[in-house]
C-alpha cells in the first residue's frame, strides 16, 4: 500500500501545484503510515520533488506523452497505481488535473473527493474537508470505497519544504494507440503573461473603470506586483477585457494570496469566485459597496486617483526591498 501523487509539469518544468500536491501527499502518507510515490511524465528536474517529501519518484519518459491527453495520462496514472499498489491517488486542480481526476476515479473504481482543502481529519473512515456551495460552505466527505482519489484545491494546503533523500525509478507503462480518441490540433497560450490560474496575486477591475481604455493603470499595477489581471463579468461581456479574465461564479476561480478589486461592487456571484483568496483589498468610491464586507483592507476612493498612487508607492517599496 502506498500513496500516489501525480506531479504535473509543462515543457519539462514542474508547476507550483506539483509541489503543493507532493507536500500534501507526504503529509497524508505520514498519517497513513505508508510511503509516498510521486509520478511524473516527461519532467526534467525530478530531484526537485525530494525537497517536498517525495521518497520515490516514478518517472515516465515517452514521446507519445508530449502533449497532454487526459485519457492517456489517466491510464498511465492507473498503471502506476497498480504497480505501486497505491489505493490513494492525489491529483491537483489545474485545468489538466480537473480533467483527469474523474477519469482516474472511474478507471480505478475509486471514490473521488474534489476541491479538497486540507489533510484528512481521519484516515479511517477517510474523511476530507472540501469546498462546496461556491466557497460559502465546506463539506466533510467520507470516501467509503477501497480505492480513493483526492483532488486538491489550488493554494489550499500550501507548498511545504520537507527534504528527503529520495530515489528515482524509470517507469515504462504500456501506451495503447486505442486510447488516443482525441487529438490535439493546436495549443494557444498567452506567452509571458501571468495567468489567473498560476498567479499569487490577482489585480481585478470592474465596471467602475467606465470603459476599456482605462485599463492601463490596472496593467501597470499588475506589472509591479507580478500579478495576473482579471475583471468582473460585465466588463468581459462588454468586451472591455477578454473572457479569460472574467472571475466569479460563471468565470474563473481565484485562490491567490492577494486579490485587489478595483471598482467592483462585490455582487455575490463575483465573490463566489474569489472567496478562496487569502487577502482581499477593495478600492471603491462607494463606502456602502458590498465588497467591503468581504474584504480585509479597504480604501474608499476614486480608482483613478488611488491606483496611480498605489503603483507609485509599490514602486518605491520595491526599490527599497530589492
Amino acid at each position: 500500500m502506498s500513496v500516489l501523487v501525480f506531479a504535473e509539469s509543462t515543457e519539462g518544468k514542474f508547476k507550483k501545484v506539483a509541489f503543493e500536491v507532493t507536500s500534501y501527499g507526504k503529509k497524508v502518507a505520514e498519517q497513513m503510515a505508508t510511503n509516498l510515490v510521486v509520478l511524473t511524465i516527461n519532467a526534467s528536474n525530478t530531484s526537485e520533488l525530494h525537497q517536498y517529501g517525495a521518497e520515490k519518484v516514478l518517472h515516465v519518459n515517452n514521446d507519445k506523452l508530449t502533449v497532454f491527453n487526459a485519457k492517456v495520462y489517466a491510464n498511465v496514472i492507473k498503471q502506476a497505481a497498480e504497480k505501486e499498489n497505491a489505493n490513494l491517488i492525489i491529483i491537483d486542480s489545474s485545468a489538466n488535473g480537473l480533467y483527469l481526476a474523474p477519469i482516474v476515479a472511474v478507471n480505478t473504481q475509486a471514490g473521488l473527493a474534489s476541491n479538497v482543502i486540507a489533510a484528512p481529519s481521519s484516515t479511517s473512515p477517510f474523511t476530507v474537508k472540501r469546498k462546496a456551495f461556491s466557497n460559502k460552505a465546506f463539506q466533510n466527505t467520507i470516501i467509503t470505497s477501497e480505492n480513493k482519489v483526492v483532488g486538491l484545491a489550488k493554494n489550499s494546503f500550501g507548498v511545504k519544504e520537507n527534504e528527503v533523500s529520495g530515489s528515482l525509478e524509470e517507469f515504462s507503462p504500456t501506451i495503447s494507440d486505442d486510447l488516443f480518441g482525441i487529438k490535439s490540433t493546436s495549443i494557444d497560450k498567452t506567452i509571458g503573461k501571468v495567468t489567473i490560474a498560476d498567479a499569487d496575486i490577482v489585480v481585478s477591475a470592474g465596471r467602475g473603470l467606465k470603459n476599456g481604455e482605462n485599463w492601463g493603470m490596472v496593467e501597470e499595477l499588475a506589472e509591479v506586483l507580478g500579478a495576473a489581471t482579471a475583471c468582473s463579468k460585465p466588463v468581459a461581456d462588454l468586451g472591455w477585457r477578454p473572457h479569460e479574465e472574467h472571475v466569479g461564479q460563471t468565470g474563473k476561480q481565484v485562490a491567490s494570496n492577494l486579490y485587489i478589486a478595483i471598482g467592483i461592487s462585490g455582487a455575490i456571484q463575483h465573490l463566489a469566485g474569489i472567496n478562496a483568496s487569502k487577502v482581499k483589498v477593495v478600492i471603491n468610491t462607494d463606502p456602502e459597496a458590498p465588497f467591503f464586507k468581504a474584504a480585509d483592507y479597504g480604501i474608499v476612493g476614486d480608482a483613478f486617483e488611488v491606483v496611480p498612487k498605489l503603483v507609485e508607492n509599490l514602486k518605491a517599496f520595491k526599490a527599497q526591498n530589492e
Partner: protein
Amino acid sequence: MKILVCISHVPDTTSKINFTEGNTQFDTNGVQYVINPHDEYSLTRAMWFKEKQGASVTVANVGEAITEPTLRKCLAIGADDAIRINTQAIDSYSVAKQLAEAIKNGNYDLVLAGKESIDYNGQMVPGMIASILDYNFVNACIGLDIDGSTASVSREIDGGKEVLTTNLPLVIAGQKGLVDEKDLRIPNMRGIMMARKKPLQVIEAVNFTAKTNAANFEKPAEKSACKMIDADNVAELVALLHNEAKVI
C-alpha cells in the same frame, strides 16, 4: 444527432446557505432553484444544434420530484423532452452511473453537461459518465462544432486554449464561452405553454452503491471587519500588505 443535456438543479446563487439536522442537510427553506448556469451554456449550444442541424434535444436530471420545474424550464427554452431519474443524488459516481445508464439505453450521440454544479462543486460527473461508457470526453469546453460524426472542440487550459478533434459519441463539460452570453434564453409564454405538453418521463434508478458520502457541512468562520485605509495614505496599505498580511 441525438443530444442529451445533463441538467443539475441548484440553488440560485443569491440563496442563503444554511444547514439543518446537526449540519448534515442543506436547508432548502426559502431557496429558489435554477438551472445550473454552466448547464445553461450547454443547453443553449444544444438548441443551436437543434435549430441549425436538426438535432433532437433531451434534458435529464437525477433527482426527486422537486427538480421537475427546472426540467420544465428547459422544455420551455426548447428541449424536446425530459427524463428524470427518480432518486436522490447521493454522490457524483452514482449520479454519473444513472446518467450513463440512460445514455446507453437512449443511444445518444452527444452528451452535454456543465463543467461544475454550483452547489456541491464537484466537477466530476461528466468525466465519470464518459469513462463509464468509454466515450470521448472534453472538459472545460469553450467551443464545439459537429460535422457528421466528427467534432472540433476547444477547451480552456491554464493560460490559453487548446483545439481538439474527436468523434462521436462524445461527452462535453461546457462552460462560459461555449455560447455567446446574449444567446442565453429566457422562456417566453409560448414556450412555457408548449412545455406543459412535452413529455417528461420518470424512470427508476438502477441499483448502485455510492462511493462517498457527505458526513456534514461547516460554514466558514466569521470574517473580521475590513480595515479601512485613508485614500490619502496609500503608503499605509503597502506597509500593511507587507508587514501584517505578508503577501507582498
